[in-house]
């Protein structure tokens, strides 16, 4: 941001560093350990009076000089060049903070060169004592170089007090400096043995060769023990966040952990095997394998060390993309383009949006990501995203998964970046704003003759906005399971609720009878729900037609978990299948009443908006495997699970089998967040500052979507946030309860969420999902009509499950609220844009309008005029006000 960014495309993403740094560091460690190897081996040659060994040392010195001084020396400068090109800001900090450390290291470098030249060119020509002195001086200079560079490198991982004082000494003698020095010294000695193997293999005299190979084995194996011990010390000295980053947070680092340990194991075993007797060609191969694995070991370690400080390049000071913590505050207040030096677009307009996005991309993303290259390829990582998904991912960066820096800039800048990545890099066409409306036909209204009909049959679905996830081969969070309720009233001066001697039957509309033809629920039900089911039978045994049973507590007939799906046999998407409900006199078999109701069942769950894939059915709804797989990939990556592997072995899981959920009654794994808290809490971090789109990108309520499930009276004046709060509020209310219950994961998800409806998290009332929900009476105080402009139902929750709208009765304790007012989210007068009458069938059937039952007259049930009401306060007033002509 202070400097221009070199546009590297495929060679980005740390490829250059990997290429130059790892090989250099390998050779540089050899340059230190190898120095001690030279002088001690020379000493041994004198002690044992071995001319052969002495000749070997001289040969090895030449090899050592050509490898360490030429390649090692120049690539060392190369690393400096490279980091200054890739992260000039951080390099500048290192240079300016430690200039005299580097200068002292340069003195050591000079001493090394002089010593090595003298050592090599005077070999056999100088007296033993002085020559050994030169050898020792070389080693001392080399080790001091390591000492100095090590302090500065570890400063980047653990800057310690430097962050407060800015002092050279505080930065240099940082918390991991000593263990790292011990660790690197041990590695350096091991590498002396590893490279010694190579030159020993070419000794002509067999005995000397074998003896030198065994000698080199000791050089590998003895420091190996020191390497393990100091490695443990090093690891324990790391601050906890760094350990967590290495072991848990960063998904890529596990690869390097494996490489490091594999390399270690091969070095150890290879060292032992080389000491054993075996044919020379085999030994040579093994020696080169050990040499190669030394590089793997070194690379594994260096990547772990660098990865451990993610998302920083200088911990808690400079991010990997060279933006400092100080800059971050400025960028977030002034905007990125206004703060950055090397950008040509200062303000975003519709015309320059992509150009501006590219500039932001170059500075914020390319320091770590390549484009189509072998390292951290941005094209692979963003392939799945729509602009919305990309924008959301950027929003969530650096929050829960803190291995990447957060996006820095304004909302507009973030959108520009997302648009650039999706439109220009991924070359995806713009998505249509609206989806084609499903054609679901017109519901016919059953007849009712107020003069002759003696019964009123009211039926409803208890969840007006209801989803199912037809992602069964991979996972499931909501099975096909719709609950229908009905109450039958015998009309009269004092109407009577009929609960006996009557059979209430339900029957789905034609075309929906065989859901097993359209979803894989039944193929995977054993794995997902632990039970075998006949096709087209629901989890509680309900089928698509059958008889309701009496729920005495609710005083309503009920058919639960009916496995209806939104896919009729004609291959379309219809989220509002109709059920016919009829009441039959059990004695006479005569039909007493007939009505219809909707069983909303949407598969417009927008996981694909961020997880990729397409709609499965008709371009309107349903999960494709691509979406389902990616959800598991993300879960596995973020939570260390192996759900995708299990699913691919035919063992998909119900999400709530681990995450408890009151609505499904699952206990889950103790300590894990409940499902609604987990799913809302996680995703809220990616969807901050949004309005209802944060809701409808997942739930089927998008105003231009195929389902448009928010179709009740509230849809005219309110939106999701009016009752549930913004996503952040909604998530925080759930997480806060989990936090109070001691769930360890809650704090992590809450850390970056800021409430929007209330000023602080303290002001949020915690709640249990499906139990503590918005209460109608918060706004409809004493059953009055609130001012929609000020109505806000957030943060006052129903006290318990019996306080829920879907469970409540009127004051007479007979009629359920839903019987007269309709399903939640489809409260009368409900307008279903796909078929206007579909969600108001009963008001239309019984009273000729779409309003709540009894809106204008009591005579739907009462055969005489009523002066008072027992149902709820204010009803008389409403009745009076709404009389025709009033």
């Amino acid at each position, binding site marked *: 941001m202070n400097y221009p960014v*070199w546009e590297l495309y495929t060679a980005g993403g740390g490829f250059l560093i990997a290429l130059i740094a790892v090989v250099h560091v390998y050779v540089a460690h050899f340059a230190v350990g190898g120095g001690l190897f030279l002088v001690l081996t020379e000493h041994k040659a004198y002690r044992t009076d071995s001319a052969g060994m002495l000749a070997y040392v001289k040969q090895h010195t030449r090899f050592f000089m050509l490898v360490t001084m030429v390649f090692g020396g120049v690539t060392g400068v190369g690393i400096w060049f490279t980091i200054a*090109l890739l992260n000039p800001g951080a390099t500048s900090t290192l240079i300016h903070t430690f200039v005299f450390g580097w200068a002292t290291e340069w003195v050591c470098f000079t001493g090394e060169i002089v010593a090595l030249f003298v050592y090599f060119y005077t070999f056999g020509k100088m007296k033993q004592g002085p020559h050994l*002195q030169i050898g020792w001086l070389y080693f001392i200079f080399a080790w001091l170089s390591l000492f100095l560079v090590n302090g500065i490198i570890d400063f980047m991982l653990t800057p310690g007090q430097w962050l407060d004082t800015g002092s050279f000494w505080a930065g240099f003698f940082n918390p991991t400096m000593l263990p790292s020095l011990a660790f690197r010294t041990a590695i350096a000695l091991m590498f002396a043995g590893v490279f010694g193997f190579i030159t020993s293999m070419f000794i002509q005299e067999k005995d000397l060769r074998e003896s030198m190979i065994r000698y080199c084995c000791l050089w590998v194996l003895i420091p190996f023990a020191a390497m393990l011990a100091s490695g443990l010390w090093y690891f324990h000295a790391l601050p906890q966040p760094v350990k967590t980053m290495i072991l848990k947070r960063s998904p890529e680092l596990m690869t390097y952990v494996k490489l490091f340990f594999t390399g270690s194991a091969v070095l150890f075993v290879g060292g032992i095997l080389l000491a054993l007797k075996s044919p020379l060609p085999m030994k040579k191969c093994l020696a080169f394998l050990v040499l190669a694995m030394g590089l793997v070991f070194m690379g594994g370690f260096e990547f772990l060390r660098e990865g451990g400080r993610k998302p920083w390049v200088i911990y808690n000071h400079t991010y990997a993309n060279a933006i400092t913590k100080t800059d971050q505050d400025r960028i977030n207040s002034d905007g990125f383009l206004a703060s950055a030096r090397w950008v040509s677009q200062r303000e975003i307009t519709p015309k320059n949006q992509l150009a501006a996005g590219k500039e932001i991309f170059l500075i914020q993303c390319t320091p770590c990501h390549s484009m189509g290259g072998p390292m951290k390829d941005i094209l692979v990582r963003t392939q799945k995203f729509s602009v919305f998904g990309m924008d959301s991912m950027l929003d969530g960066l650096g929050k829960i998964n803190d291995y990447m820096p957060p996006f820095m800039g304004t909302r507009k800048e973030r959108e520009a970046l997302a648009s650039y990545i999706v439109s220009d890099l991924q070359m995806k066409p713009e998505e249509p704003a609206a989806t084609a409306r499903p054609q679901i036909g017109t519901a016919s209204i059953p007849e009712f003759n107020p003069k002759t009909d003696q019964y009123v049959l009211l039926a409803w679905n208890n969840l007006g906005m209801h989803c199912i996830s037809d992602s069964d081969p991979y996972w499931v969070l909501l099975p096909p399971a719709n609950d229908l309720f009905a109450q039958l009233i015998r009309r009269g001066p004092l109407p009577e609720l009929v609960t006996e001697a009557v059979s209430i039957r339900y029957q789905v509309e034609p075309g929906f009878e065989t859901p097993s033809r359209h979803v894989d629920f039944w193929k995977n039900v054993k794995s997902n729900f632990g039970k075998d089911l006949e096709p087209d039978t629901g989890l509680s045994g309900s089928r698509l037609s059958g008889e309701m049973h009496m729920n005495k507590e609710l005083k309503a007939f009920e058919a639960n978990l009916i496995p209806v799906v939104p896919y009729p046999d004609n291959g379309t998407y219809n989220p509002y299948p109709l059920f016919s409900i009829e009441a039959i006199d059990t004695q006479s078999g005569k039909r007493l009443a007939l009505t219809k109701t909707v069983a909303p069942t949407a598969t417009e769950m927008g996981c694909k908006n961020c997880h990729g894939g397409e709609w499965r059915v008709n371009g309107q709804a349903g999960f494709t495997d691509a979406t389902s797989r990616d959800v598991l990939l993300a879960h596995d990556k973020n939570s260390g699970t192996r759900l995708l592997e299990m699913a691919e072995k035919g063992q998909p899981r119900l999400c709530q089998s681990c995450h408890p959920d009151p609505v499904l009654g699952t206990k889950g794994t103790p300590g894990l967040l409940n499902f609604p808290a987990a799913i809302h809490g996680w995703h809220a971090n990616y969807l901050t500052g949004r309005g209802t789109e944060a809701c409808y990108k997942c739930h089927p309520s998008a105003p231009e979507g195929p389902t448009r499930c928010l179709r009740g009276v509230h849809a005219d004046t309110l939106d999701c946030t009016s009752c549930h709060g913004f996503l952040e509020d909604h998530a925080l209310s759930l997480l806060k309860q989990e936090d109070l219950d001691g769930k360890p994961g809650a704090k992590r998800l809450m850390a970056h969420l800021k409430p929007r409806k209330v000023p602080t998290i303290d002001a949020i009332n915690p709640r249990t999902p499906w139990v503590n929900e918005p209460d109608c009476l918060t706004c409809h105080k004493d059953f009055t009509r609130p001012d929609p402009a000020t109505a806000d139902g957030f943060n006052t929750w129903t006290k318990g499950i019996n306080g829920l709208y879907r469970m409540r009765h009127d004051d007479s304790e007979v009629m359920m609220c839903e019987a007269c007012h309709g399903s939640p989210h489809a409260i009368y007068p409900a307008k279903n844009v796909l078929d206007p009458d579909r969600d108001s069938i009963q008001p239309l059937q019984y009273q000729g309008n779409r309003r709540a039952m009894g809106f204008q007259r009591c005579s739907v049930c009462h055969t005489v005029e009523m002066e008072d009401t027992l149902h709820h306060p204010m009803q008389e007033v409403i009745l009076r006000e709404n009389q025709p002509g009033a």
Partner: protein
Amino acid sequence: MDPARLIPSPDTIPVHWGWFQALLTLTFILHILVMNTMLGSGILALVRELKTGSDPDPVSRDISKKLPYTIAFTVNLGVAPLLFVQVLYGQFIYTSSILMAVYWLAVIGLVIVAYYSAYLYDFKFDALGQARLIFIAVTVLILTVVALIFTNNMTLMLRPGSWGRYFTNPGGTLLNLSDPMLYPRYLHFITASVAVGGLVQALIWSLKYKSGAAHTRDHVTSGLNWFMGATCVQMVWGLWFLLSLPGSIRALFLGGSSLHTALLLLAVLGGILSLVLAARQREWQALWALLSTVTLMVFTRELLRSAFLGAWFTPANLTVTGEYSPMVLFLISLAAGLVLVVYMLRLAAAAGKEVAP
């Protein structure tokens, strides 16, 4: 694009900028002398190889033995001024390096190849026969390319006005070819290398002659001829260099500023003096004149940089944190290091083997 907007904010420095300026100047003088020796010797060896064919030429053989040392110390002594220039002018040199990143990073690979090629030229001098020409040619060719890259970077860092080209080419392939100063400056450094290479040859063979290892002063004379020829050409390039400077800056060296003018004048006089001494076959006196000339030229070079960047920046404005203790560590280490280097060289000399140029 306003260049001032593009120049990055500098970081703080621990001690007064004068310390860094002194260290930068001192180490650059050492670097440029060794670099000139390396490249000049290489060019001389190449020319001799071209002339002599497969016959082993004693001068080339001598150069072959010393070339790896000089490369090693050129790299080593280049590190220090590059460090100090980053401390004082980091915001300029990091930026120019990024603009020409592809070439700048290529320096590393190029130097490695040149270095190994020089080692082959040394270790296999006899075994290679005529083929050794290839190796010295590769080394020299690469080193002249590296010099061109360096000249590009050192001039591009002075030209924030041309940095806006980045916005149409962020791929790190920009050079500073449109800068009229580039070519005379490059030729000035290359020719200086030939001159220094010639003088170093004269000095080496002068020592050999004195010690009886050489029977004639022919190679001394030949070296001095190279020195004189190159220095004469140098006067032409120097004039071109001066004329290529922007008017306001050129004026500083032509009376506009007494310091600038005096330094340049003294440097030129030093050059002329060294010519006269070389013509009189006084190679050791010519050496002192050369060292003075190079020192004065390096001062002039620093003034030139300040003049170019003066519109944007002066190191005197850098914030100083005042942490002096690390510098004390460095100075003590430097002293100790030098004592040990001298000690090692004395041990080497006692062993009777040449170990350093």
